[in-house]
């Protein structure tokens, strides 16, 4: 069982929904990003999504775009992101970390080398936005063979005909993108999301986690109540962008996780 599977099994036993938090690795710089990362589990985060900075994040809104630029300007590289995770693992061996980003930095490093380094560093899964099932041979299948979970996005445009193809090589959990749009865009209504989650759950035993557009504890609670959990990204990254100290960012994360865990 992967660290992600173990986490969901434990949550299920406790009757709790998952709270997933996204931060951009290296934003605003290596030290502060590492400090926030280290504090996430204590702030009630069940799974960490760690963004890989990329110059051309085509599925992201301005908040995450700028976070990536800040990280790159501060000298973040794929190697430094792996180093962050390695350091995190020295004190935490239970909270799963999923890398989320785009394919080119991984392709540039070489898939085989990357997978070896990522598993060594203690990464548990990958969400690569620009690798649909049609390109599974690139990274999805090699990643699963290397013992990493490959988490797929399902979207409102993923119709019933296509859904089995999306679910086929997915592991860990399914990330349901609640809107057609980019990160940080307008929120979806829980009343719309519920039936979509049910539609996906009818086809898979994997947990379904909902993301995009969730920015308050109330929204986290509502969305988590109709799914297996929720992801908050842009709202947390926006706090970091304001230059708040780690303690304040983590207090905000705590309010979000409390919201999700009330569901």
């Amino acid at each position, binding site marked *: 069982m992967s660290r992600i599977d173990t986490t969901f099994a434990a949550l299920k036993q406790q009757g709790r929904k998952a709270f997933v938090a996204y931060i951009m690795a290296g934003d605003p710089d290596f030290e502060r990003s590492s400090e926030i990362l280290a504090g996430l589990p204590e702030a009630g985060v069940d799974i960490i999504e760690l963004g890989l*900075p*990329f*110059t*051309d*994040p*085509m*599925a*992201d*809104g*301005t908040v995450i*775009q700028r976070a990536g*630029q800040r990280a*790159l300007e501060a000298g973040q*590289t*794929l*190697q430094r992101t792996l180093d962050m995770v390695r350091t995190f693992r020295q004190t935490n061996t239970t909270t799963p970390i999923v890398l989320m980003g*785009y*394919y*080119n*930095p*991984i*392709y*540039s*490093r070489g898939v085989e080398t990357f997978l070896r380094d990522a598993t060594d560093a203690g990464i548990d899964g990958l969400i690569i*936005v*620009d*690798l*649909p*099932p*049609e*390109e599974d041979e690139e990274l999805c299948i090699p990643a699963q063979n290397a013992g990493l979970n490959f988490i*797929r*996005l*399902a*979207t*409102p*445009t*993923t*119709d019933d005909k*296509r859904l089995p193809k*999306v679910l086929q090589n997915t592991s860990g959990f399914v990330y349901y*993108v609640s809107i*057609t*749009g*980019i990160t940080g*865009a307008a929120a979806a209504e829980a009343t719309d999301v519920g039936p979509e989650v049910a539609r996906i759950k009818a086809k898979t035993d994997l947990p379904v986690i909902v993301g995009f557009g969730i920015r308050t504890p109330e929204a986290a609670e509502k969305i988590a109540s109709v799914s297996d959990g929720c992801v908050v990204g842009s709202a947390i990254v926006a706090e970091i962008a304001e230059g708040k100290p780690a303690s304040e960012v983590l207090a905000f994360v705590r309010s979000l996780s409390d919201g999700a865990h009330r569901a």
Partner: protein
Amino acid sequence: MNDLFNSFMNGPDEKGRFGDFGGRFVSETLMPLILELEEQYEHAKTDQSFWDEMNFLWKHYVGRPSPLYFAERLTERLGGAKVYFKRDELNHTGAHKINNVLGQIILARRMGKSRIIAETGAGQHGVATATVCAKFGLKCVVYMGAHDVKRQAPNVFRMRLLGAEVIPVTSGRGTLKDAMNDALRDWVTNVRDTFYCIGTVAGPHPYPAMVRDFQSIIGKEAKEQIMEAEGRLPDTLIAAIGGGSNAMGLFYPFLDDKDVGIIGVEAGGKGVDDKMEHCASLTGGRPGVLHGNRTYLLQDDDGQILEGYSISAGLDYPGIGPEHSWLHDTGRAQYVSITDAEALQAFTLSCETEGIIPALEPCHALAHVAKIAPELPADHLIIMNMCGRGDKDIYTVAKHLGFDMGDTEGR
């Protein structure tokens, strides 16, 4: 009949690949649309009524066929090979871009899409898209890097006159690649009613093949015209490359004519060296994945995309169409680069010898013609694609030639 097993014209495969290049590297939200587009395009391709509509508009709206013109004084000046220009700068809107836009807009109408989005660098693709949208009464939104909005002000005004909304893109560094990012962000948000009209032979499958097919009218005509003029095929084809759509359009019908040499000319900017002040993806980049396809890209050691630089906004893109990457790796085509300074010399050369004010993009092709023609025999036939006219570039050129245009602030 071509030998199918050794043909260069069979690509892409069912996965949208030209060898290892191309593919469909897009987010899940877009994937169903890409598949629908592929299906609709495959259907249209074999539908005579689709091509009847294209041919009618190519003739009566665009002004095709464009002439194949013997550049006599240029040939004399260079003193070697016989140089022909394929005159796509004479098209309506002043460049080859409209060949492709017509095809995509007719397809969008068939698919019931009411809103068209496009990215543009120099503004030629944006103008062509705004033009065809005006003609058909479709809503048009053009994404253009804020930096390009400044240096191509006349085209911005044209697009607005034609009823398009021009959105200056400030994300990233505000150039063509950022405009493409924002167009993709728009598409992912407005998937249901919006058609993304891509201006070059790049992007996810089926775009590279579809745009090539629409632009191939250039090469088809050129082939017939050179047979008529000379009774034989040319020895060398030369075209400028940013994304590479005018080049692919000229090259494609000749790919299996093994005796025809093919040369693509990339923008060398200030020189192709480790300072990376150029846009020569093939000569100065390596394979990577961006904007839906795998192709040669300008990137750093960590896979971060670098900004290209060129005097020509139309070539200012860090990637290149995947089919070019494949033609490069297989050796079927040769790729070279030309600097800003060489392109400017060619600009003057075309004005002086032929009375043609060329766009800065084909000036790169012409500069390479000027380099090789003198060493070639008089019976060596070169066809160069004069893919755009230079009206839009006169401010830039004036600045470089030290000519005071008066009130040109902001350009």
